[in-house]
């Protein structure tokens, strides 16, 4: 069994959680607030304590088949002793029996220890409110979806990200043309001047995030960017208390390709912005070198809202720091055609009426 960590209130021994509003740990039972650093020190001291061992063997139940438990980990809740079965990547969760927040410290130990974490700034209520705002102004959203919408679950998840930093050195070559037209009494003339344009230089990138978790959709995670990394702090497991967390299951090496694509696109766009005064500009070759590269492992806050409608799952994600929410919504096909035909009718009638008035006038 893997090691589990719970943060207990030094005053009342209740399980304490990270409070997004205070940006501190707070005991929900006795309302005592703790600074993360203080708690960490206290926690270190507690680690010296020998662990209890009160386990016994039991023959009840069947053995797991081989391979069946490959993707599972079993933990024992420190508070109630209940058995917590979790995914092998789960890093923070709550006990299904006593509801206390638990952190699987082993998931963040050694090489797996994140460098940075951006603590949640927005709470569950903000996520629900953001979703309501998300529905607003969407004319083709089925009314039933809005009305019947009971969000099945709202989860605050620390999603593992790789943050890539690099100095990009680029050299881009363009073919450009400038076109001039004039005419005399007999001919129209078109003069096309061809240019070879070169641009070279450097551009620095910090913290380009790439989703390191296969459970989260990459496009969804990129849709709620950007994050403000000036608010990132050194990782402390305490921040995870009260939220879910996963450890990465996509390695930095696997993620680097995605970061490169974005760095390349941005570098090329920066150079292209410096090419002015041409009719057409076509990039011929581009050479991007990355220097001083480094990758950091970070946990970023994401609220995930799930709902089901018409037999389909709809997932929304909200940036737990900025409140930016993304998630595709279903379309009411009937409404689509109603709007299309209605608008076409009204506009046609209006145009026709105007043409008649113009004729009368």
């Amino acid at each position, binding site marked *: 069994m893997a090691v589990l960590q719970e943060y207990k209130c030094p005053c009342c021994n209740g399980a304490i959680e990270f409070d997004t509003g205070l940006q501190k740990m707070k005991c929900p039972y006795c309302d005592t607030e703790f600074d993360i650093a203080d708690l960490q020190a206290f926690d270190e001291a507690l680690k010296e304590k020998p662990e209890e061992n009160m386990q016994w063997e039991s023959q009840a139940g069947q053995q797991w088949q081989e391979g069946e438990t490959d993707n599972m980990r079993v933990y024992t809740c420190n508070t109630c002793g209940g058995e917590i079965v979790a995914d092998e990547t789960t890093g923070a969760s709550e006990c299904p029996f006593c509801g206390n927040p638990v952190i699987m410290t082993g998931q963040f130990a050694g090489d797996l220890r994140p460098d940075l974490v951006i603590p949640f700034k927005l709470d569950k209520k903000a996520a629900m409110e953001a979703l309501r705002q*998300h529905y607003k102004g*969407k*004319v*083709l959203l089925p009314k039933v979806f809005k009305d019947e919408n009971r969000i099945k679950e709202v989860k605050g998840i620390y999603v593992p990200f790789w943050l890539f930093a690099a*100095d990009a050195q680029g*050299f881009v070559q363009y073919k450009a043309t400038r076109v001039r037209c004039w*005419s005399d*009494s*007999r001919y*129209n*003339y*078109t*003069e*096309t*001047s*061809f*240019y*070879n*344009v*070169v*641009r*070279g*230089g*450097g*551009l*620095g*990138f910090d913290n*380009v995030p790439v989703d390191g978790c296969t459970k989260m*959709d*990459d*496009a*969804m995670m*990129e*849709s709620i*960017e950007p994050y403000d990394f000036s608010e990132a702090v050194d990782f402390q497991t305490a921040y995870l208390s009260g939220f879910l967390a996963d450890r990465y299951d996509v390695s930095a090496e696997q993620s680097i390709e995605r*970061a490169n694509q*974005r760095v390349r696109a*941005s570098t090329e*766009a*920066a150079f292209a912005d*410096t090419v002015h005064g041409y009719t057409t500009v076509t990039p011929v070759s581009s050479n991007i070198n990355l220097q001083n590269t480094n990758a950091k492992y970070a946990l970023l806050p994401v609220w995930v809202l799930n709902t089901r409608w018409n037999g389909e799952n709809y997932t929304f994600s909200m940036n737990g720091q900025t409140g930016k929410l*993304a*998630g*595709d919504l279903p*379309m009411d096909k009937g409404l689509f055609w109603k*709007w*299309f035909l209605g*608008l*076409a*009718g*009204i*506009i*046609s*009638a*209006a*145009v*026709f009426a105007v*043409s*008649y008035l113009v*004729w009368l006038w």
Partner: protein
Amino acid sequence: MKRTISFLLLLLCLSLLAAPFASAVMPMVTDDASLLSDGERSSLEAMLQQLSDTYSVQIAVVTTDSAEGYNMDSLVEYIYDTYDYGYGTGNDGVLLLIAMDVREFRILSNGFAGDAIGAYEIDAISEAITPDLSAGFYADAFETFAEECEYYLEGYLYGYSFDFSTNLLIAVVIGVVISLIVVLIMKGQLKSVKLQKHANSYVRSGSFNLTQSGDYFMYRNISRTPRPQDNSSGGGSRSGGGGSRHVGGGRF
């Protein structure tokens, strides 16, 4: 006395004889190039006659094998003036002249007809008849010419009628296109999940430095295309004396 009476009788007879010639001026259709069959000719004549009577404007067609080297604009004016086309004191009339050797045509409008059918209308009529002329459907072309003249004369006198079907069609097309754009925008609002193309939010501020920048001229291409020779000759217009004259036309 007897001589005087007989002289007066002669004068009366002469004037009676001369009267039809004076008023009947030139025929509606003068087909020197023989572009029309007898049947086509007579039905065209009947049509033009009826129109001419209705609007008191002579609408005539002249075809000739050869312009004999004359400038078409001058030729149509020469024919119109020399043969005294047009009705009334203002010589109100429209004349379509076709010369087969140069394959050109001109439309001249004069007097009241010149007010109703100006340069713009002549261009429109030219455009309407050119395809039939090019294809050799002369009878059809002349019929179109007559109909167009009627349309503009009628429009000038009583106001143009509202073209219901064309206006409706245009209105529906505009309505459908705008509506489609609007609903597609609405549909687009429902989608918010997509991969980011750039990493612009993560560019270290002020880190962009351009170390190499060169724009090198390679070569130059000049191509020329002949200007589309205006198929319709500009023609001329002038006004004066309670009416105006316009000439226009083109090749076919």
